[in-house]
Each structure stands twice: as structure tokens, then as C-alpha cells.
């Protein structure tokens, strides 16, 4: 269960503060599929990043299974990201100087997994990239890069997958493949899935759609 209470994020911008998130309260139960939608600048990505502990909120609390993460020290936060969170970026953010295999191995190595390379190979095979193991990101297409990113995010079998516009940089066919991949992971492993998207069709496949506008929750629609 992810429990977010009164979460506020302000950034200093010139003389004024820019409020990105304004008193957001939301609870996401385990294994739920959630879409976060809203116009650009509504605070979707920031919300996702704060859940992943990639930044510190100005105020408010985020608890995972009752444990507060906003006040965690650096090392505990790193362990939290390693063990609980898989994160997929819109621009993939693969390490350009590592091969596909090495990119997927990184989280496994960080977690101290024994056979990181073998497991990474399996994961890449599972996303259909068994002939791309030694390719560098620049040698892969956008869809292939995003599949590597998905494999990397899921490498340590985290209970929570956070995806920030995972199809935003992909054409519709490739995007479809990536979505299917995410949904199958959710289905097969019972992973909580929170994804930020502009894509109404994608959002409609989620159990719940949270709409943000100007940093506030405008609507919280539960489906099926």
C-alpha cells in the first residue's frame, strides 16, 4: 500500500515559488493498476519521482506499507529504490556507454545478485531482445531501448513499477508492445503499476485513473 498524505512540492523559480504539487492525498493499494493523467505541467512526473524517492517533497508524507520514505536517510532510500521500485523513464535513460546486457545487469549487481549477467540475459530474452545483448543504446531503436528499460526496471522483481510516459517517445505499434509487456508483468507477478500518460487509450486499460491539474487532484476515477 502506497499512502500519500498532503504532499506538496514547491520549486524556487526567480522571485516566486512554483507550486508543482499542492496538498495531494492518495492511497494506492497493492497490485493496483493506476494511470495518472493530466495536462503538461500538472505535476504527474513529479508525483511519480517523489514516490520513487528521487527527490524530497517540500512537505507531506509518503508511506510504503507504513514506512515513511520522505525522511529516510540516503542509504535507506537507495535500498528502498533497489528493492521496492522499478522505474521507467519517458526518455529511457539507459547508460549510453553500457551495452543492453550491462544496463540490465546494473540493478542486479547493485542488489548483489549472484548471477547478474545470466538473469539479465533471461530478462532481455523475455522482452524479445536476445539478439541485441551486446548492442549499445545508440544502436537500438526507440522501442528496443524502452524494452531494455522495462527489463532493467523489472530486473529485481520490485513490487512496484513506476512508468513515466513509457510510450511518449514511441510510435503507436511499438508503444503497444511496451504496454503489453508492462501489463503482462503486472498480471504474472502481481506488481503494483503506476503509470503517467497522455494516452487516453492506455489510461482506459487501468483500474483507476487519477487526474491532476495545477498540482491538485481533479478527479479519481475507479473502474471495473
Amino acid at each position: 500500500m502506497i499512502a500519500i498524505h498532503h504532499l506538496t512540492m514547491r520549486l524556487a523559480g526567480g522571485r516566486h515559488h512554483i507550486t508543482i504539487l499542492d496538498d495531494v492525498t492518495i492511497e494506492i493499494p497493492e497490485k493496483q493498476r493506476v494511470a495518472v493523467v493530466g495536462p503538461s505541467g500538472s505535476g504527474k512526473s513529479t508525483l511519480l519521482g517523489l514516490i520513487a524517492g528521487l527527490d524530497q517533497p517540500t512537505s507531506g508524507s509518503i508511506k510504503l506499507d507504513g514506512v515513511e520514505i520522505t525522511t529516510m536517510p540516503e542509504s535507506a532510500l537507495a535500498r528502498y529504490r533497489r528493492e521496492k521500485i522499478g522505474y521507467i523513464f519517458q526518455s529511457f535513460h539507459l547508460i549510453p556507454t553500457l551495452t543492453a546486457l550491462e544496463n540490465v545487469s546494473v540493478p542486479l549487481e547493485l542488489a548483489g545478485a549472484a548471477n547478474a549477467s545470466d538473469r539479465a540475459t533471461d530478462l532481455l530474452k523475455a522482452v524479445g531482445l536476445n539478439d541485441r545483448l551486446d548492442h549499445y543504446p545508440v544502436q537500438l531503436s526507440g522501442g528496443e531501448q524502452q524494452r531494455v528499460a522495462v527489463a532493467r526496471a523489472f530486473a529485481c522483481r520490485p513490487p512496484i513499477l513506476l512508468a513515466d510516459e513509457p510510450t511518449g517517445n514511441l510510435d503507436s505499434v511499438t508503444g503497444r508492445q511496451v504496454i503489453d509487456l508492462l501489463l503482462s508483468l503486472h498480471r504474472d507477478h502481481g506488481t503494483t503499476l503506476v503509470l503517467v500518460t497522455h494516452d487516453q487509450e492506455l489510461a482506459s486499460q487501468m483500474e483507476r485513473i487519477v487526474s491532476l491539474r495545477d498540482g491538485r487532484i481533479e478527479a479519481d476515477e475507479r473502474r471495473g
Partner: protein
Amino acid sequence: MAWRETRAAWRHFIYFLTCIALGVGAVVGIGLFAANVERAVTREARGLLGGDLEVRVSHRLSDSGQAVLQSLADRGIVISHASELVAMTAAIDDRQAGSNRVTQLVELKAVESNYPLYGTVHVEPSQPLTDLLMPSTNLCRLPSNSHALHPSPITLHAPCYGAVVQKSLLIRMGLSVGNRLKIGQATFLITGIIRKEPDRMANMFSLGPRVLISQQGLTATGLIKPESRVRERHLLKVPSSVELQPLLYEVRGRLAAESARVSSYREAQPQLKQFLDQLARYLGLIGLTALFVGGIGVSMSVQAFLREKLSSIAILKTFGAESHTIVFTYLGQGIGLGLIGSLAGVAVGVGLQWVLPTALAGLLDSNLLEQVEFSSSLSRASVLPILKGIGVGLFTTLLFTLWPLLSIRHVRPAQIFRRDIATGGEDTVGPLRGRWGTLRRWRSLEDRTRLMTATVIATGLVSLSIWQAGSWRIGLLFLGALAVAVLLLLIVAHALIKVIRLVSLPRAVSVRHAISNLQRPGSQTTGVIVAIGIGVMVIVAVGVLERSLIRQIGENRPTDAPTFFFIDIQPDQASGFSRLIHQQTGDLSPELTPLVRSRLHAINGQPVKVEEDSDKDHEKKDEKRKTWYFTREYVLTFGKQLPQNNIVTKGAWWKPGQTFSKPLVSVEEEAAKNLGLDIGSTVELEIQGATVTAEVSSIRKVDWGNFSTNFYMILSPGSLDGAPFTYVATVRVAPEQEVPLQQVVVAMFPNVTAINIGDVLDSFARILDRLSLAIRAVALFCVLAGGLVMAAALAATRYRRLYESVILKALGATRGLIARSFAAEFALMGAVAGLIGIVLASTLSWAVLHYIFDLPWSLQPKVLATGLALTIILTLIVGFLSTFRILGQRPLAVLRHE
């Protein structure tokens, strides 16, 4: 456009500027120092020689020689006679018994009342020198009460002699002005302190403090005996109506029989000038090395800058800009920056030349820089070194920016725009890959423009080096050595990194990440290793050389090496001296060796011509060496026994009881080779006007490092009968006996000079120490440049590191892990650079020791280990300073800007 670009890329430009400024600073600093030395020495040339002409002999001039000088004086030429010798002084303290007096070896100089002919002697108190050297008799009289208690050796009727001394003498002997000294048979009142002596020969090496007395005083000491070691200098001040050069030849001809060395102030190259010239030249090459190392940093900064500008370049090309327009735009910008960097370097150089003389000051016992009124102020003479520095800086900029800039021509716009997905992938663009180690570079040589550029760059480097070295040979040698070093560094760095990856599969993620970081494309690792490795090589080589030389003179001293050399023992003192040594040390038969001083007169009947100005045109070392063998003074001995550590390599030593129908001579190997002597050759030696002809009967190998008396020529017993000679004795005593023995000998034999080997070696070690300090000060610039190149390389990859570190954090890496990974990477880089650097330093020091000093090389594990450790510390510090801010960045803030 250029200005807009400049504003944006300030980070790379700072490194660009600093790299140039540092190198130019080193070159300008040394150039200014050399120019100031040149100026001071030229201005003071007459003062340094002591006159327009100097006639120097190692004995008193004969009557006919005196007549020659008299005839010159009749023509209006002013002549001043100065005698220089080493002697012993004893403090006169009336409360102590005679043999317990403090004694000290000094460099004695006796002058006439018209001394100095040029320049001024600065003394304290500031009174005329004559008054101080020949004070009024009243001054010599002791206070009446003291006189009553302790009868003074100076009576009211005796003439009164004064001595002006260097302050160090007073400190060492615990005396002050007004005290008295005994030198030989005479007593001197210390009347003042010498601050500056214009013509003190520019020896770095002095045996003791200066004591200045009058010629009358010297006569009273009774030290001048026929075979005493003395340098008699007759200084001539020539009226402007007399032409100097013809006079020089005339005097040379007329005094040929006296074996006199005659030189004019123009040709007399004071050792000081020669030494400092050479020092400046070699320091200049080290400075140039720093500049070249900095050039690598410039090249890296330009590449990093271009990588960031790829999109702009692609856009410009899309809109029809031609490659050469873009290349010239950036080249102009580069030269502008080079100019600013060079100007900053001039400021650094001006600073350095203030520091350099201070570092060197202690080097010269007689404070030579002060003596020539050396000043670090800027003058007209400074213009050339400054312009030269700016020129060298601009040229280096051009050389190191042009090559990377040419890559612009290969940028294809489409390629860049396709790249935009993989942001942060600075390394992904082929033509701009790391400069070092891509095959592509060699392939690109096929390109004619590149080929031409490469030629221009190579020619430029060669010309710069030759210019700085001041000689073709040294310049090319320097560049060749540098090229070999760079090449070795490149090859070994590549190989080592490969090996590290192949061999080690460390479990720690941080270390594994560090190792892969080292060999990523675009990580500039090899460039950094070359830059740091060269700095390490230079500075460690200086350290190893210093240690080796000190070890050679100090630690390798054989345990049976003598403590003292006692020189100038007169024949009639020999038995008394032996008895004294026996009483004092228990040594039954101290070794007394007779010495006869001579010059070569003829070889195989062919007279030896002494070409005084021969050292002018002889660039070649061998030639110089050969000349030296012909013109030097030979100290001869004669005896039955073959000296210890001497091995006869040709012919045979005389047998016991052998009778000699003619004088025979045994010649040292090297001397025989240079003089062209073999068994059966004849050598004609001139000893104070008389000649002795001897036949070479054997050739010996001599171990010159054995701290004993060694001779080039040893004559058969009886061959030098009748020639004036003195004895030299070597005596070995326990350290606690040194001072008492010296005191007793001086008290009993005031004319005998005691030279303490330990003191001599100590002062030699001190000189080496100062010298190496000065060289290291400049070598430090190379190391700094290496560090700077590393910082520039890290700045070039800063964005990539930042990006990777936040992704790693997002994936669950801690700040500590990333820091450890960086640290491991920098330490590895330092270790590889340091390792190759110290190996190269050992090789370089071996070459210098073997080819220049002719000394054996020995491993210096301490110096090498220190060098390696300091290199790793350096890379860690530079790495930490360049990256610590990356560690604190929050992932989301960085990734949001993506």
C-alpha cells in the same frame, strides 16, 4: 558568433586557459630569469673578472714575468695583484692554550691597495678597504689591562694587519669584529665583514669562508712557498687608447714561458654564467614539457567543447555554412583564448622568476646572484622572453586546437540529429572520439589536409624544442625522448587497462564499474595517463638522480676512506708531521705522498699548444674534453709502490730495485687515450720553468671514487729529484678526534691546510639539494599540468558522469557506492600513470647517470614508491575536486532537464 560560443562553454575554456597559462608561465619565468642573469653578468663582466685582462698563474711570476708586467705598467696599464689560496685560520683566544684554538679552513685572498680595479667591495663598516686591511697600529693594541695579564703576540712595533671576513666565518668560529685570527705565522685583526666581492670566482663550490687580507699580510703569513697551491691573479685595467685584443695576444706571447692563462673580460665566461645558462636551458625544456602536457589538456577541452557544439555545427551546416568557415571561426576563438592564456602565463612567469632566485640563493655559497647585483625586476631585457612566451603559447594553442577542429569537416548533420535520442552520449560520434588510440585517426591520415596539418604540427613541435633548447642536438634529443616517453605511455596504458579488465573480475560493483569507466570510448583515460605520467616521470627522475648522486658521494664512501687530507706539507715538515700524527692517532706511518705540479709541454717531441679561447667554438663535448686534457695542470707524484685500487692495464709497473736510466711515467687510461699516449711515447712535463722528459712505461686504470689521492701521471722514483714539491697526507681518525687533531696540526704547522672530507661531501650534498629543489620547482609545473589535464578530461565527461550517477541512484545505488566507484577509477588511473611514470623516470635517470655522469644506476625503491603514492593521491584529489558536486545531485532535478 565566436563570442556567444565563448560565453556558453566557459568551463572548458577555463581549463584551456589554465593549461596554456601554466605552460607559458614556466617558459616565461625561466626565460626572464635567464635574461636577467645574462644582463647582470654582461653588465658586471669586468667586475667579475676583476679587470679588462687577467693573467693567471699557479705560482709566483719569475723575474722575467715581473719585468713583462712592469713594461705594461709603463704603458699606462694599471695592474693589481691578487693571490688566492686555501689556508687554515685559528682563533686567538687568550684564555685558551695554543693547541685548543678553534680552527677553520678558509679561502684566503690577498690584494693590493688598488683593488678592485672594477666594481666595488661592499664591506661593513663602510670604510676604505685599505684602511681595513692595513689599520693603524693603535687599533691592534690590546686594552691595557688585558695586555698586562696576557702578553699579546702583537707588539707595539710589529706592523698591524687587518682581515675582512665573510660573516659565516665569524659564526662558525664564534668570533666578532675586533677579535684576532692567526693565519700562518701572522696575526690579523678582524676589521670588517665582506658583503660583496665583485670578482669572487663564480664557484658554486667553496671550501670555506672568504678572508680578505693585504699582500703585505700574506707575505707575513709565510704561507707562500715554491710549491704552495696558490692562484696568482694579475688584473689589468687597460686605458681606452690601448686596443684590448692585440694586447691580449701580446701578453699571452710574452708570458708563454710562465704557463700563464691570459683572458679578457669578453671571453672569460664566468662559471656562474655558464652554469646558470645551462641550468636555464634545461629548466626551459622542462617548462616546455609542461606546456606540451598542457597542450593535451587544450586538445581535450577543444574536443569536449566541440562535442557540446555538435548540434550547432550540424544546424549551421544544414543552413549552408561551409566546413572551413566553421573551422576558422573556432580556430579564431581558440587563438583568442590562447592569447589570453599566454598573457595570464606571463603573469605566472613573472611570479616564478621572483621565486626561482630565492630557491637558488642557498645554492651559491658566496651569494653569487647578489654579487652580480641580480635583480628580478622587469627591464628592456625582459621583453624578449615575454614575447617568446606569448609566441610559444599561441603556437602551442594552434598546434593542439587545429587537429581536433579538423573533425568538424566530417560532421554530417543527419548523423547529429539522429543522435538526439541518446542524449549524454557525447562519445557516440565517430569523428570526435577520444583523440588517442582510435584506429580511425591513422586512417584519417590519408586525408590530405590532415596529413599537412600533422606535418605542420610535427615541424612546429620540433622548431619550438630546438628554439628553447638553443641547440639542434639537444632540441631533437629532448623531443625524441619525449616522443618515446609518450609512445611508451600510450602503449603501456592501453595494455595495462586491457589487462586489468581481462585479469580482474572484482566482486565489488564499484570497482567493476570503475574499471569499465576507464576504458569507455571518450573517457580520455589514455590522454590523462600520458599527461600525468610525463609529469611524474620528470619529477621522479629528478628525485632519483639526486638520491643516486648523494648516495654516490656519501653512502658509498668506503669505510676506510680518510677523514682528512692535509695539504701543503713542506718537505722539511714531513718527519715532524708524521710524528705528530703518530702521537695523536697512534698511526705508525701516516701516508705522505709527494706532489709536484706541472703542465704538459710536449708529447713525442711535439710541443703542446695552449689555445686559450678554444672553448669558444667547440660545441662538441669530446673536443672540449680533449682540450682539457692538454691544457690542465698535472699534479705528479713519484714512488715505488703502485697505489691501491690502481690496476696496470698495459705495460708493467717498475720492479723493486729496478734502476732507471731515464725517467719513466705511468699514465692513467683515459688521459692516455685523450692525449694519444701509448707505451714508449714520451711526455715532456714543465715544472716551474724546468722540463722533465719521461717515457710511458705503463697505463693504469684508476678508481677515482676511492677517496684517496689519485694521479694521472706517476713518475719513477728519482725522476723528479730537485723539483720543488710538497706532501699531501691522508689521515683517518674517529669523529670525536677530528676537531682536536685539526687544532693541533694548525698550531704546530700553520701553513698546512686540513681539508675535512666529510665537510666537503656535506657541502656538495647541500648544493645538490638546492639544485634539485630548483629543478623540482619547475618540474612541479609538469605535474600541475598533468593534474590540470585530468581535471579538463573530467570536466569533459562531467555531464556524462552526472547523468550516469543519477540513473544509478534511481536504480538504487547509494552516494557512497558512486563515490567509491569514482575513487577506484581515479586511483587506478593514478596507479597506471604513476607506475609507467616511475618506470620511465628510472629509465631516464639511468640514461643520465650512465651517459652524462658515468655513474652506476641503482634502484631507489623509496623515491619510486613515494612517487607512485603521491601520484595516486594527486589523481584522487583532482578527481574528488572535479566530481564531488556531482554526488550531491538529486536524480529527479537532473533527469527533469533531460
